[in-house]
C-alpha cells in the first residue's frame, strides 16, 4: 500500500502591496484626466461645430514647449526605469544618479509648464477654454508634483539603504505612478496641444 503524501505547501509569495496599491491609485488619477479630457473634447467640438475658433482671439498654444515637455517626460520615464533596474542589481551609484536625473527632469517640466502658461496669453476667465485648459494642465502639474514627492521619498529610502535587489517595491510603486503621469501627459499633449 502506498503511503499518502500530502501536497507540499505552495511557496509563500511576497505580497507586492505597495505596487498594487500604487497601480490602483494611478488608475483612479488616470480616470480623473479621462473625465476632464472627455469634457474638453466635447466642449471643443461644440464650439468648433458652431463655426467659431476654439481658442479666444489673442490666445495661442505654441507647440515647441509642449513637445519639449513631452520629450523631457519620456526621458524621465527612461531614467526612472534605469533607477529601478539599477537597484534591482544592487548598483546603488547608478540608482542614485538616475533618481536625481528623474527629479531634475520633473522640475524642468514644471518650469516649462509655467512658461507655457505665460506664452499662451489665455485668461482663466476668458471663457470655457480658459477654465478647461488651466484645470487640466494644472491638475497634471499637481500629479507631477505628487509623483516627484513619491520618487523623492523613495530616493531617500534608497539612500537610507532600505531597498535591496530583492526588495525594492517602494521604488517600483513610485515608478508605476510616474509612468501613469507620463501617460496622462501624452493624452494632454495630443488632445490639447497638438489638436486644437
Amino acid at each position: 500500500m502506498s503511503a499518502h503524501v500530502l501536497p507540499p505547501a505552495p511557496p509563500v509569495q511576497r505580497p507586492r502591496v505597495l505596487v498594487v496599491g500604487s497601480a490602483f491609485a494611478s488608475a483612479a488619477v488616470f480616470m480623473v484626466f479621462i473625465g476632464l479630457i472627455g469634457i474638453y473634447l466635447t466642449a471643443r467640438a461644440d464650439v468648433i461645430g458652431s463655426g467659431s475658433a476654439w481658442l479666444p482671439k489673442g490666445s495661442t498654444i505654441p507647440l515647441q514647449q509642449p513637445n519639449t515637455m513631452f520629450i523631457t517626460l519620456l526621458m524621465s520615464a527612461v531614467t526612472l526605469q534605469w533607477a529601478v533596474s539599477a537597484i534591482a542589481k544592487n548598483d546603488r551609484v547608478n540608482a542614485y544618479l538616475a533618481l536625481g536625473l528623474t527629479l531634475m527632469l520633473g522640475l524642468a517640466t514644471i518650469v516649462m509648464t509655467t512658461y507655457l502658461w505665460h506664452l499662451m496669453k489665455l485668461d482663466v476667465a476668458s471663457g470655457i477654454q480658459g477654465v478647461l485648459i488651466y484645470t487640466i494642465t494644472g491638475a497634471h502639474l499637481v500629479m507631477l508634483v505628487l509623483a516627484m514627492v513619491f520618487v523623492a521619498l523613495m530616493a531617500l529610502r534608497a539612500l537610507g539603504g532600505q531597498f535591496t535587489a530583492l526588495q525594492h517595491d517602494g521604488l517600483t510603486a513610485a515608478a508605476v505612478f510616474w509612468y501613469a503621469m507620463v501617460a496622462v501627459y501624452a493624452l494632454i499633449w495630443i488632445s490639447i496641444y497638438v489638436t486644437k
Partner: protein
Amino acid sequence: MALTDTRPDTGTDPSVAPSVVPSPLTIFGTGDHKAIGIAYVLAGAVFGMAGLIAAALASLHQIGSRSFLSASVGDQLSQVSGIGLILLVIVPMFLGLGTYLVPLQVGASTVAFPRAAAAAMWTWLLSSGVFIVSICIDGGFDGGREKSVSLTLLALGGLIVALLLGTVCVLTTAITLRTPGMTLDRVPMFTFSMLVGGSIWLLTLPVMLANLLLIWSDHRYGGAQSFASIGVQFGQVGWITHEPQVYAFLVPGLGIVADVVATLTGARLAHRNVLLVAVGAFGVLSVGAWAQPAIYPSFDEDFLWQAMGIVMLVPLLLLLGGIATALRSGKPSLKSPLGLAVVSVVLTALAVVAGALLVITPLELRSTSMFANGQYLLIIAAALAAVAAGLGYWGPKMTGGQSADGLGKLNVLVLLGGGVLGGVSLCVVGFATRFSGLSGSHDTLLVVSAIGAVLLALGIVLAILGLASGTRKGAPEAGDDPWGSGQTLEWACPSPPPTGNFGDLAVVRSPEPLLDEEASA
C-alpha cells in the same frame, strides 16, 4: 484539508492577542481595520437617518404649490439628499463592512495600508461634516453665498478622495493579502463583490471629481460663466444618482446577500460561478460616467444607454436563479439576516425592472424626474437592506455577542415597507404622465413616499440597535461561528477578532474552507 500546510509567520496567536472591541477611544488614532470599519458604519448610519429625513421633506415639498419649504431649500434638500445618500451613507457603509471583513475573509492579519485606511476614514468624516455645514450656511449647488459654495465643492472633493483611498486599501487587501490557496475565484462572495464594486467606484468616482474640479475652477477663477453658472452645477454631478451609474453603489450588497444565503441555508452555493458572473456583469453594466446629461444631453437616446438598462435584467435573473437554487437546495434557517437579504433581493429586482422600464422611450417615463427618483430610492432601500443583513449576519463577529433577532425580524418588515412605499409610489407618480387617472393621486403618493423614506430611516436605527444588542449584558457569547454553518474564513477566528485576526491558517482548497475542514474531520 492538510492542516500541516500552514503559512509561516502569519498573524498572531489568538489565544495570546487581546480582542479588540471598537469603542470611541479605540477608534480614535487607531489603524485597526475593525475599528475603522465600525466607525464608517456608525457615522454612515447617522448621516443616513438625516439624509432620509431630508429626502422625505424633499418629497413633501413637491406637493401642491410647493409651498411646504422655500424653493431654494426644497431644491437644496433634493440635491443634497440625492448625492449625500450615496457619498455619506451607502458607499461608506459598504466600505466600512469591506474594511472590517475583507481582511478576515481573505485570511489577512490586517488591511493593506492601515494608516491610509484610517486617514481615509477621518478625511471622509471631516469632509462629511464640512459638507453638511456648508449646506447649512447657504452653500450647496447654486447656493447664495460664494464662499459656502466653494466649501461645498471642496468637501465633495475631499469625500471622493477619501472614499477612493479607502477603496484602494480594501482592493489591495483582496488582491495581495489573500491566504495561500485562495485564488480569486475562491474569495468569498462579499469580497468578490467589493472587488467588482470597488473597481467600478475607482473608475467612475474620479470622473465626478473631474466635474467638481471644473465647477470649482470656474467658480473661483473663471467668473462662473460656464461650469459654475447658476442652474447647471448639479446637472454635472447628478449623474451618479441616475441609471446606470447608481447600480454601481449596490454591487457589494449582492455579495452580502450571497454570503448570508450560503451560510443560513447551510449548503455550498450550487451555482457559485454563475453568481460570480452575475456580480461581475452587474458591475460592468453600471459604468455610467459617460452618461452625463450636462455634457451629453441626448444620452438617453443612445442605444448603449437603453441597451444597458434592458441587459441589466440578465445579471438580475442569474442572481435570482442562484439565490433561489440555494434556498431550495439548502435548509434555510429563518433568521433575520436571511429575511433582510431576501428583502434586498426583492428591492433590487424592483429597481432593475424600473430601470428597464425607464429606458423604454414610448413609455415617456423620462418626461419628469419622478420615476427616476423612485428607482433611485428603491436602490437606496436595497442597499440599506443589504447593509442591515450584513450587520445582522456579521454583528456577532463584531461584538462578540449574539444579536437580538427580534429587532432584525421587525426590520425586515420596516425596510421592505420603506423601500416599497418610498420607491414604488414615486414610480407610480412617474406613470401619471401616461395615465391621467393617476394624476389625482399625485399628492397622496408623495406623502406615501415620504412615509417610506422615514421608514427607511427607522430601518437604519433598528439595524444599529440590532448590532448594539450584541454588547448588552447577558447576551449569549457568539463563539467563533455563531451560525454553526459558517463557510468562509472570518468564522475561523474568535469573535470579536483579536489583533492580527488569525493564527496559522491552512491552505485554502475551495471557496468554502470551513466546510472542507468539517468534511475532513
